[in-house]
């Protein structure tokens, strides 16, 4: 059952305050937050949880690289304006 740990409380360092496991599992999108493993591995069998509820492809997607801050900004600009960032 995916919801088995949902009530557990941890500290989200992205946001800077406590959140429930439910937020890490399903709050940020269709897949768990990419930080879910390092935020919970000390308290929950997080690897078993992920392997039990997600396909290898989904797990790869969860931990796939994300843009840094400046890169995110330029990517959003590109998406919104429809222009390339190239000069």
């Amino acid at each position, binding site marked *: 059952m995916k919801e088995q740990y949902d009530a557990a409380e941890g500290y989200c360092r992205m946001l800077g305050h406590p959140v429930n496991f439910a937020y890490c599992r399903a709050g940020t999108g269709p897949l768990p937050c990419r930080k879910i493993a390092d935020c919970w591995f000390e308290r929950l069998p997080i690897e078993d949880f992920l392997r039990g509820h997600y396909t290898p492809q989904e797990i790869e997607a969860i931990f796939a690289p994300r843009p*840094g801050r400046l890169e995110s900004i330029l*990517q959003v600009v590109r998406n919104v304006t429809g222009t390339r960032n190239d000069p």
Partner: protein
Amino acid sequence: MKVKIPLLEKEMPRKWYNLAADLPSPMNPPLGPDGKPVTPEMLAPVFPMNLIEQEVSRERWIDIPEPVLDLLYRWRPTPLHRATYLEQALGTPARIYYKHEGVSPAGSHKPNTAVPQAWYNKQFGIKRIVTETGAGQWGSALAFACALLGIECKVFMVRISYDQKPYRKLMMQTWGAECVASPSTLTNAGRAILAEHPDSPGSLGIAISEAVEAAVTEHSGTTRYALGSVLNHVLLHQTIIGLEAKEQLKKVGEKKVDVVIGCAGGGSNFAGLAFPYVNDKIHGDRIDIIPVEPFSCPTMTKAPFVYDHGDTARMTPLLPMHSLGHDFVPPPIHAGGLRYHGIAPLISQAIVEGLVTPQAMHQLECYAAAVLFAKTEGIIPAPETSHAIAAVIKQAKQAKEEGKQKVILFNLSGHGLMDLGGYDRYFSGKLEDYELPREEIDASLERIKDLPKPSVNRTGRW
């Protein structure tokens, strides 16, 4: 005994210091997807050109406009404290000083750049600034700055934070900012999320998308986005911290600083204190300059210098920085400000040159240091600031062992009164130390080994 060293307003520095002018080896520029450097024009839809000019400037000293100084006087100069009571508790011969940036209206160093950014935006004709925030430290600093300038401020605050962390939201609202729960119906990015997940609690990524979209799609062209860390102009504005400290130390007869310490996430508070001393080191002084990071997230202390891609598709710019790679997943650490996987490029280059020497501290040691500091000096530091304090105590103990009267200076980047949850977890025994195994780092580095390597520009002087 003198424990506070004030500085008069008329004695405050009139210029910011730009380390980019003095680095003995050139920084590798950020690269676009085509491998060519990012241009100012690419950033123009997001930031006003006067700030972009600072971002790319190689001028050593940049004048702080008088109107900006007038605004900074609200809380600056910040006091320099002699940590007399901490020294006594440690029995150290070291003389420990700290800049107390927690005295700003927003409680941290963040307004040092929020205020000039707001001012430069206004000079450029900008009438509204948009940003995002999680728990609200940066959002509240920018809200404060915009209130001083009479600029509209919109902050996309992650919905779950908006609901669960109301006090900084109230700070923003008190300063007149519009604080919007993200995802919102105000942007395409927000509406798309809400269409699929009407009850979405939001995320920092969504909030960034909303803020940038709101800035670049506003048709009058008088809206821009603001960022509170990492970028060169942000670090530039923060150098007022170290420049003030130098004047204050002169007042008490300190002719030389032996050690300069600051916690380093994106790097702005460390850079603010340290860069003026890096300049001294470049010109011959012998100073240990130490950015401190969590042992469990060793961005600076164990990673080689690589170009780091932003995404899997490799379509986003490459920044030369110390990084463990994007699939590096750091273990838990309870310091909200220390979450960047890469440090600011200027600091990376200073590390490459050997001008600054990073250290890593375990989080239990950091909290123990923070508690000792609170009991002796009276100030409860922000969790990220505790990393610097732990490193200071380590240096002070070493001075005691060696019988050396060295001078240690550090940056108390913010108070922790809005972030007591970490202390609660520390006192209840819920925190653990964890050191990333060497093999995990090696595996991560293996995955990025084929990325292009920058030329390592190093003079070898340090």
